[in-house]
């Protein structure tokens, strides 16, 4: 699983970092970024989903992993 923060939508509510500090960080202006290129290890998938479902700006998206796609 891979996630991405849409910087245009993110307004720095910081819910993602609070729920999944392993996966997200915010900068000085409150804009979030997904850590490790958005890569979500299997054991953190539930946390990533929580972050997606709690973002008040609908700013976190799942990204289709192209390598994964190709393998299919």
């Amino acid at each position, binding site marked *: 699983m891979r996630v991405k923060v849409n910087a245009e939508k993110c*307004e*720095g*509510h910081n819910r993602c*970092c*609070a729920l999944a500090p392993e996966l997200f960080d*915010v900068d*000085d202006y409150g804009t979030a970024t997904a850590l490790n290129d958005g890569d979500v290890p299997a054991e953190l998938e539930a946390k990533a989903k929580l972050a997606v479902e*709690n973002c008040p*700006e609908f700013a976190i998206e799942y990204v289709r992993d192209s390598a994964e796609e190709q393998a299919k």
Partner: protein
Amino acid sequence: MTKTPPVDDWTTDFDIFDESYVKDPVPVWNELREKCPIAHTDRWDGSWLPTSYEDMQAFVRMVPALSSRDPLVVSASREEEEFDPILDEYGNSAPPITSDPPDHIPMRRLILPLFTPRAVEPYRPFAEQLCHDLIDGFIGRGACDAAMDYAVHIPAKTIAHVIGVDSGRSDEFVGWVRGLLEEGMTDPAKRIKYRGIIRQFFGELVDARKANPRDDLISRLLAQEINGQPIARKAVVGICNLLLVAGIDTTWSSISSALWHFSTHPEDRRRLANEADLFPSAIEEMLRFYSPVTMAREVTAEIHTGDVTFMPGDKVLLNFPAANHDPNVFEDADTVILDRARNRHIAFGIGSHRCAGSNLARMEMDVALRIWFERIPEFELTDPDAVTWAGGQVRGPRHLPFRFPV
């Protein structure tokens, strides 16, 4: 509380200062969501009250057709404004809450770095010590007014500490902010009086820091620039005013609402007392269920939405509290669920005006509730009739008589 004529029809004549609405607005929202869903009133010079989550998500993004320049429901009349000497000297803006593009983002970027999660964490020990000291003051009595003896002091003294002003004067600050926001909300003359007091206080402080910079927030603001220009004195005074005004009533309301909830819902109280892991989700749920703040926007260009048309000069209320009870978005919306996992609430607003102090407010709530539960895990309301609520644009309990085992 302001006495208002009774409301017969909430869809055409609503009043957010109505006593029953202030006490419990949930039934009104549910009725409106089914019937309109955007209500109108001619009261207070006319405004619109949307109730759905979807509308709030859309309206915050209609900038600048829905302008932030006057975010209060009851505006002061032009005549009243004209006789205010403070206006010339300090202006009436409170950036960035009152700003629109193109000023808004640069103004906002001045204060955002002061309130990131990392920036507010160093204030935690101050808040913790404060909560312990407050509880020390009444724990031996087995009783207190949780709103007046506890909750109010936490944001008031913390924000004073953050701004770098004497937190010993916090009772005075609370008086000013209540004069401005609570009593002044429906009484512009009173609002103008307290606006003057607050702006004068910060005006003098800003001048003092300009002459002799210190290692504090005001000096740091004064040292910043926008587009290579130093920030105008008026704007710095406006920002300081905003930090004080926006940081007190709101967080006080949230902490008091949470304590009110747990004092009247013993199962939830016992659950939280026994499961410390629940604090983060419980706090978000309190923020959702008892969202204190309703902001207003001023219409600057005709907007057609659903069956209604907003005309220039109308006010549109950003009813975040009602959006957070929308059953289309929240399962069992009118029930408190302490471990609610999906909680996309918008208590701090959304869009480019998201509350800049949200991380500080969350830290204060976390400290206030954890320390309260650690020291006073069992407590109850002594007299439900003695509870009073402030309402309108900032809603929360102002008196909470509690008792607890000594």
